[in-house]
């Protein structure tokens, strides 16, 4: 499907049904996409609790916007644009700039997440669970320190598998700007993770 033909996007078709008052279509959209948005927001803001609240807010916004909805892009492009704005608003909040890491990032929690991520011993050199946990914690820390627009572009392209063009539409920028954002984010990750390479 091309971006110039949003009407053929299944998400767009569901959203048009929502606009016409079809509650089942909205439920289907929520069930299909809410988990991905929680995941995206989780990697963006670093807190599952806040990620869930953000995802709920995103779908409430979509529901409230339904009467005015006009399909101009793929549904997911629109969805991630709303989600990115919500995440950017969250990380700009003063409370988020000085997070209580002792509450949000307990070492045990970090290790647990890393173990889930890299349980496959071939995932990293050293073949040890400890190295996997350290890698997971380090990736989360580097992600958190990336500038928000780089983080958004990296997550959308890497984790959510969106093309540069789709990311550009979601971030309301150009494809070449996305290329630059993804490159800089990856270069930073590569530099900060040198010890694991």
């Amino acid at each position, binding site marked *: 499907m091309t971006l110039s033909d949003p009407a053929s996007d299944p998400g767009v078709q569901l959203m048009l049904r929502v606009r*016409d008052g079809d509650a089942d279509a909205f439920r289907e959209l*929520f069930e299909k996409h*809410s*988990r991905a948005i929680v995941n995206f927001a989780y990697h963006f803001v670093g807190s599952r609790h806040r990620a869930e609240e953000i995802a*709920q807010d995103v779908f409430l916004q979509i529901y409230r916007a339904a009467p005015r909805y006009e399909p101009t892009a793929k549904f997911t492009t629109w969805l991630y644009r709303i989600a990115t704005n919500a995440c950017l608003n969250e990380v700009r909040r003063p409370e988020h700039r000085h997070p209580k890491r002792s509450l949000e990032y307990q070492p045990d929690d970090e290790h647990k997440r890393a173990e889930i991520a890299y349980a496959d011993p071939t995932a990293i050199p050293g073949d040890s669970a400890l190295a996997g946990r350290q890698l997971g914690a380090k990736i989360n820390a580097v992600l958190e320190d990336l500038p928000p627009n780089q983080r958004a572009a990296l997550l959308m392209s890497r984790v959510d598998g969106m093309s540069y063009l789709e990311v550009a539409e979601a971030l309301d920028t150009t494809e070449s700007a996305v290329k630059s954002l993804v490159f800089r984010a*990856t270069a930073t990750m590569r530099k900060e993770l040198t010890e694991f390479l």
Partner: protein
Amino acid sequence: MSATCEAIGPELVAYLDGALADDERRPIASHVSTCLVCRREIERLTTVQRWVSELPAVEPSRDFAATFWERMEEEPPVAERSGRPSRPLRWIVPVLAAAAVLALALRSMVPGTSTPPPTVPAAPAPRAPAVAAAPKIERPKVAAAPVEKPAPAQLANVEDLKPEDLPPELLEHPELFLRLPVVRRLETLEHIDAVKREQQSEDGAG
């Protein structure tokens, strides 16, 4: 590291992502095929990309969906909202309020119309012709006119008016404002005032 390596370095991520046009991709592919340094860099970048793409997917908590649908219960159905204008004409309220206040003020200036309330025909009366050419103009027969609801009662809470309080057709077609009784009454009051002044003028001349 050669100058070529440095030049293509910023393009390597897009190269790996298949985001380059053919004419951008070919020279990089050609260089990489002969450059061990760049091949090694591509391996590292590929590994980093894989690590990021394999970040642990967090599962929403058990009550995530239930909490969301609870919040949704407070939302009106889409169909209920789609019939309303997406941007209500918010300017109509202050305009109506100002017009009503003006009408009240003018009305209070016309002797004999503040108490009891005016009992003039609802339809706008014809304006008086020019004074010099005017034959005798009859006063409106107030007692015989149909009785309307008292104006002060209608306008008592004018400052509290909200778009929801106004007829939907008025929001859609603001020109209907001119047909509002208060505006029509304003025209009538102006007419009465003009007639009175003419009458006084004639009495004075006679």
